[in-house]
């Protein structure tokens, strides 16, 4: 069996600093043995599902589009749709990765259960797939890979390999909670790209050098076996969403903005990167706004800061994003970017909790940005009904929106009424 021979190659050394039981499980799993772990299932009917379906009526989308509840998924964060589209893996900021299964292809999940219950996860926020079916999961401070996860998720003991061992993504002293939610993608070069948020509002100057070297406050890339790690993107505060433009392979990413400078600055960012090592300004600038604490700190020499392509509403919290390749949505959306705004947490008047769409022009620059879906924020009371976190697409071209507040995945389809 092919998988079996792959495992030793992707296992890098021993598992360190992990709970003993989990470690034993990791060893067993890497040898394709069974553990006695069992699944947790999430009820897809009943009160909870009904309450979520009631939210649908509040969501506004352009004409011809329809919103529905795809799945009840507690704490749903970043998503990875498996190549065949039967199962979507969903990360959380707790200890679960969920497998969301639609076996009968009626576009409503028929089963939601935890993925690899034998593995002890720690903030497994970011799943992503390689084209050949390896699932990668970026945790707070470790990266795992699951070969053929799309087929092995049915059992509690899928094969697992370690790409980055526990404690080697960042130094343990730099672990936080909020800014250690990772996202990942496999780039057109076949490398694994992982965002590393910096764990402060604005980092102290004495951390600059160390962070820059490790890639904290940036995006790193490495080979899928963990070798060849390098810093690809510099000068980010805390990015929780990136994707590659299918037209030219360029990396785009969102960034979250400094708190405490007022309600209306700095603006949110959508960035375009077209060369390795580019610097996007943080902590000297953020969304084009100078950060006061860094007024007198010398800027890196011979470095030109790349300005954002799109300035979003301040504090709307732009998180997950994905290019729309082709499919059932109207042509104006093909090749553009859908991004999720989680919504502000301390702005006087809350803003966000929407899905945004950014169209690109022929040169690959952002041409225009508009609201695509909104209504998760109750404008009258300022309370959230839900908070979109990530965007993914099913093979039929319909959109999934994860929501870690409501604990749901919403589906948006294009379903125009045909003229009679």
């Amino acid at each position, binding site marked *: 069996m092919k998988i079996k021979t792959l495992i030793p190659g992707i296992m890098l050394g021993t598992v360190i600093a992990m709970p003993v039981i989990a470690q034993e499980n990791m060893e067993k799993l890497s040898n394709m043995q069974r553990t006695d772990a069992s699944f947790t299932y999430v009820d897809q009917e009943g009160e909870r599902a009904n309450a979520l379906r009631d939210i649908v009526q509040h969501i506004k989308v352009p004409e011809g589009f329809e919103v529905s509840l795809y799945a009840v998924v507690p704490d749903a964060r970043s998503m990875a749709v498996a190549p065949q589209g039967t199962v979507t893996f969903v990360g959380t900021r707790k200890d679960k990765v969920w497998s969301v299964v639609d076996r009968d292809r009626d576009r409503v999940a028929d089963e939601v259960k935890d993925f690899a219950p034998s593995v002890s996860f720690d903030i497994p926020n970011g799943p992503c797939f390689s084209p050949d079916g390896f699932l990668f999961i970026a945790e707070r401070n470790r990266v795992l890979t699951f070969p053929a996860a799309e087929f092995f998720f049915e059992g509690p003991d899928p094969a697992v390999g370690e790409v980055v061992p526990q404690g080697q993504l960042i130094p*343990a002293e730099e672990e936080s909670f*909020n800014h250690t939610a990772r996202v990942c993608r496999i780039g057109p070069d076949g490398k694994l790209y992982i965002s590393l948020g910096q764990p402060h509002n604005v980092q102290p100057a004495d951390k600059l050098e160390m962070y820059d070297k490790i890639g904290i406050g940036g995006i790193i890339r490495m080979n899928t076996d963990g070798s060849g790690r390098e810093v690809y993107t510099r000068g980010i505060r805390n990015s929780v969403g990136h994707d590659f433009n299918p037209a030219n392979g360029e990396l785009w990413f969102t960034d979250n903005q400094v708190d405490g400078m007022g309600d209306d600055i700095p603006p949110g960012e959508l960035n375009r990167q077209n060369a390795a090592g580019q610097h996007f300004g943080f902590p000297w600038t953020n969304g084009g706004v100078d950060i006061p604490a860094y007024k007198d700190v010398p800027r890196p020499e011979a470095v030109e800061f790349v300005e954002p392509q799109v300035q979003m509403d301040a504090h709307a919290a732009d998180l997950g994003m994905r290019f729309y390749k082709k499919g059932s949505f109207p042509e104006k959306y093909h090749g553009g970017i859908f991004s999720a705004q989680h919504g502000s947490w301390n702005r006087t008047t809350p803003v966000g909790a929407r899905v945004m769409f950014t169209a690109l022009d022929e040169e690959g620059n952002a041409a225009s940005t508009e609201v695509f879906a909104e209504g998760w924020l109750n404008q009258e009371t300022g309370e959230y009904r839900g908070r979109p976190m990530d965007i993914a697409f099913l093979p039929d071209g319909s959109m999934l929106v994860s929501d870690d507040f409501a604990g749901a995945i919403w589906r948006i389809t294009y379903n125009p009424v045909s003229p009679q």
Partner: protein
Amino acid sequence: MRLAAITILGGLMLAGGTPAFADDPVEGQKVARMCQTCHGIDGLARMPIAPNIGGEPKEYLEAQLMAFKTGAREHEMMTVVASTLSAQQISDVAAWYASHTASASLPAGTSEDEAPSECVSCHGIDGISIALNAPNLAGEANTYIVTQLRAFRIGTRKHEIMSEIAAKLSDEQIRQFADWYSKVNLQITREE
């Protein structure tokens, strides 16, 4: 630092002696609008990055907010929030959340004997605090508890008792303790 913070607050209240300086849960409820997106207006957390604070000892809440305000404790969001709060607002908002009642029940099939002995004398078997300066842990996301214990262990969060206890804990123990309390069912209520 925490003791100092309490002294400052205590001093303010003593010096005041008027209703303006007494803590006021109703005023605190207004302040809590700043907190509710993450912690819920009733203190039942709405996201795993935030702890449940409804029914927490007022002393603990005040001490933590003062620690964030003074920089003794640091967090990318709480440092920003606390820096804008006055001592009076801190006292009020702590009183609002403390005016709730947190109750906990162990999940079916668990034995009290499995509770982590290192923790129970302050945090309780079910994670309802029995010390004024200790937080409730019932129903907290295990990733939150792990984060805090690791911070105590490496010194990025400090406390005279917790720093010492956490220094001796392995990753395995930290995860076990966190798992114990995260499985507890938590309810937060408030009598009008």
